[in-house]
C-alpha cells in the first residue's frame, strides 16, 4: 500500500521537498545541539523547559483530538465520519511521532533515553506518559492501516481490529490526562497545580485537533478529488465550537480562582501571562502578554463567530475560523502554559525565556517531519479511497 506514496503530481513532490529542506536544516541544528549540549537553546536553570516540551504538550492534544472522529463513528455508528475517520487516526500517528521527537530533542542525554524502560519507575508520571504515548501510536498505526488495507481489498476488516479501536478511545483520553499529570502533580508550581488542568487539556485538545483536521480536509478538497463532505465538516465544526467554549470557560475558572482568592501564588503566573509581572526591583516582565491576549481575543472571537450559521456558510470562512482557533490554542498551550509555569521561579525571581535560533530550527524540523508523515499517510489513504 505504501507504494501509493511514491507516485503523485508535481505539487505533491514539491511540498515534500520543501518539508525535506526544513528537516535538513533542522537536522543540522540538532547536530549542533547534540555536540554542544542544550546550552544552545534559550532554556536556563530557571526556565528549564522551553519550546520542545511546550510543543510536545500541545501535540499530545492534537493526537488526542483524533478521537473526536473515532468515537462518533465507532461507538455511535455515525456514518458521516466513516470517510474521514482514517484522517483522524493518521493525524494522531503524525502528532504522536512529533511528541516523541520533541521529547528526544529535549533530553540532555538522548542516547540514554532507553533508561526509562531499563529502570521502570511507576511513581514517575513521565514513565507512564512514555507508555501511553507509544501505546497510542501503536493503536492508531495498526488500527488505521489494517482497516485501510481491508478497504483496499474490498473485504471487511478483521474483527480483532475493532477492539483495538475501542481501546484507542479511552486511550486517547489517557494520553492527555497523563500529560496533564506531568504538570499538575508538582508541588510549588502554582499555575500547574490545579485539578482542572486535565479537563482543560482535553477541552483544548478536542478543539485544536479537529480544527487542524478541518483545515486538512479543506486543503485535500481543494487540491485532490477527496471531499470529506459538507455534513462531516459541519459536524466537526460543531464539536470544535463546544470544545472551544469549554476551554475558554475553564480558563475563566482559573482566572476567578486566582483573582478572587487573591492568593499571590495563584495570581503571579496569570499576572505574568496577561498583565505583566513586576519584580522586587520594580522591573516589569511581560514578554508573553501580547501573544496571550492575542490568543484569547482571536480564540473567543472565532468561537463566538462559529455559533452563527452565517459564519459557517462557506468553506473559506470555516477554514479561517478553525485556523484562528488552532492558533489561539497553540499560543495558550504551546507557549503560555509551560513557559508561564516557570514564572516566577520557586525563589520568586522572574526569568524570561526566549527560544534560540537553533531551538527554533529544531522545532520547525519536528513540525516539518510531522507534516511529512501526515502527507505521506494521507496520500496513501486518499489514493486507496479514490481508486475505489
Amino acid at each position, binding site marked *: 500500500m505504501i507504494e501509493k506514496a511514491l507516485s503523485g503530481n508535481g505539487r505533491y513532490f514539491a511540498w515534500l521537498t520543501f518539508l525535506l529542506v526544513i528537516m535538513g536544516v533542522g537536522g543540522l541544528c540538532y547536530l549542533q545541539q547534540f555536540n554542544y549540549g542544550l546550552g544552545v537553546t534559550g532554556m*536556563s536553570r530557571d526556565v528549564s523547559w522551553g519550546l520542545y516540551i511546550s510543543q510536545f504538550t500541545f501535540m499530545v492534544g492534537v493526537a488526542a483530538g483524533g478521537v473526536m472522529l473515532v468515537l462518533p463513528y465507532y461507538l455511535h455508528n455515525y456514518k458521516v465520519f466513516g470517510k474521514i475517520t482514517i484522517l483522524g487516526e493518521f493525524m494522531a500517528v503524525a502528532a504522536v511521532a512529533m511528541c516523541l521527537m520533541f521529547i528526544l530533542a*529535549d533530553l540532555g542525554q538522548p542516547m540514554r533515553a532507553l*533508561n526509562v524502560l531499563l529502570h521502570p519507575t511507576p511513581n514517575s508520571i513521565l514513565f507512564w506518559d512514555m507508555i501511553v504515548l507509544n501505546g497510542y501510536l501503536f493503536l492508531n498505526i495498526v488500527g488505521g492501516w489494517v482497516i485501510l488495507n481491508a478497504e483496499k481489498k474490498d473485504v471487511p476488516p478483521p474483527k480483532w481490529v475493532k477492539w483495538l479501536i475501542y481501546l484507542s478511545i479511552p486511550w486517547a483520553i489517557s494520553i492527555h490526562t497523563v500529560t496533564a499529570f506531568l504538570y499538575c502533580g508538582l*508541588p510549588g508550581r502554582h499555575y500547574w497545580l490545579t485539578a482542572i488542568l486535565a479537563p482543560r487539556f482535553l477541552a483544548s485538545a478536542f478543539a485544536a485537533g479537529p480544527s487542524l483536521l478541518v483545515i486538512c480536509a479543506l486543503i485535500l478538497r481543494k487540491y485532490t478529488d477527496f471531499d470529506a463532505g459538507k455534513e462531516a465538516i459541519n459536524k466537526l465544526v460543531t464539536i470544535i465550537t463546544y470544545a472551544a467554549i469549554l476551554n475558554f470557560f475553564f480558563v475563566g475558572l482559573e482566572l476567578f480562582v486566582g483573582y478572587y482568592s487573591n492568593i499571590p501564588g495563584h495570581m503571579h503566573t496569570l499576572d505574568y501571562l496577561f498583565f505583566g509581572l513586576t519584580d522586587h526591583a520594580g522591573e516589569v516582565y511581560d514578554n508573553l502578554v501580547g501573544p496571550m491576549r492575542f490568543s484569547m481575543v482571536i480564540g473567543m472571537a472565532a468561537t463566538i463567530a462559529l455559533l452563527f450559521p452565517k459564519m459557517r456558510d462557506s468553506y473559506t470562512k470555516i477554514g479561517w475560523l478553525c485556523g484562528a482557533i488552532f492558533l489561539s490554542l497553540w499560543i495558550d498551550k504551546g507557549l503560555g502554559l509551560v513557559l508561564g509555569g516557570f514564572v516566577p521561579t520557586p525563589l520568586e525571581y522572574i526569568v524570561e525565556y526566549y527560544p534560540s535560533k537553533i531551538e527554533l530550527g529544531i522545532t520547525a524540523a519536528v513540525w516539518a517531519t510531522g507534516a511529512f508523515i501526515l502527507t505521506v499517510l494521507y496520500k496513501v489513504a486518499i489514493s486507496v479511497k479514490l481508486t475505489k
Partner: protein
Amino acid sequence: MDNSRRKFLKIAGLSAIAGIGAPTAFNGLLKGEAFASSAPSGGGGHGSEKAPTGKRYGFAIDIKKFASDKDLAQRCVNACHSTHNVPDFGNNKDGSKNRKDEIKWIWAEKFEHTFPDHSHYKKNEQLQETPILTLCNHCDNPPCVRACPTQATFKNSDGLVLMDFHRCIGCRFCMAACPYGARSFNWRSPRELDASGNYKYIKNPNPDFPTRMRGVVEKCNMCAERLAEGKLPACVEAAASSEAIVFGDLNDSHSPVSQVLKEKFTIQRKPALGTKPSIFYII
C-alpha cells in the same frame, strides 16, 4: 470513628500496602497521626515525628552567625563548589541577566527569596540583609525522587537525596518538581579544556570527586562521599569555627542537630508543601 470512615481508612490502608495509594498520608492516619499531620502549619512540615527507617541527616543553619560574619556564607559556598568540581561559567554573576548556564549546589540568597512565602512586611532589617545559605533540603518526602523516570535521583538509607550521573537522561522533570530551585543542569560540558589542557571552568579540580558530563542534573549531595569517610560536610566544616551550621542525624535524638532543634526556634522552607525538609534555619 463512624463506620464509613473506618471503611475508608481500611481501603486506604489496603491500597497503601498494595503500593497504589498515597502511602505516607494514609499510613499516618492509620497510625493515629491524624492530628499531627493535619496541623494547620502544613502537614506537620517540621518533619515527621516518627523515625522512618535508617538515618536522616540534616542541618540547622544559624542565621545570626552569618549576619555577624558577612563572608562566611561565601566561604561555605566556595568550600562546597571546590570540593565538588562545580564549574563556574562566568555568566552567573550577581546582577547579570544571563544566568543561563549557572550551576550551584549552595548559594547565598536574600531572606525574601529563600522564604518567599513569609511576610516581609516590616521584617527585621538585619534579617533582610543577612545572606541566607540556600541548598537542597534533602526532603524526607522528596518530589524530585517521585518525578524522576529513571531513579537517577533517589533517596539512600541515610535520608540523602542523591544523583546517579550515569543514569540521568537529562529530562529535567526533577527540576520542575523541586519547589526549592535546588537543582542545576549541565547545559554545556563542564569538562571543556583550555589550550594548556586544564579545565576551563573548574579552577583547582578535586581529583577525588568526579566531574560531570553535559546533559545531566546535579545538586548538593550532602557530601555523601565525605560522610562515608567520617568527615563533616565541606560547608559545615567551613563554618566550624563559629558553629554556624550544626549537622547530624535528625532521627537520633542525641545528635548535635537534634539537640539544637530542641532548644532553638527554627523554620523550614515552604513546610506547607509536605516535602519535609531536613534543613532548618535558626532565626
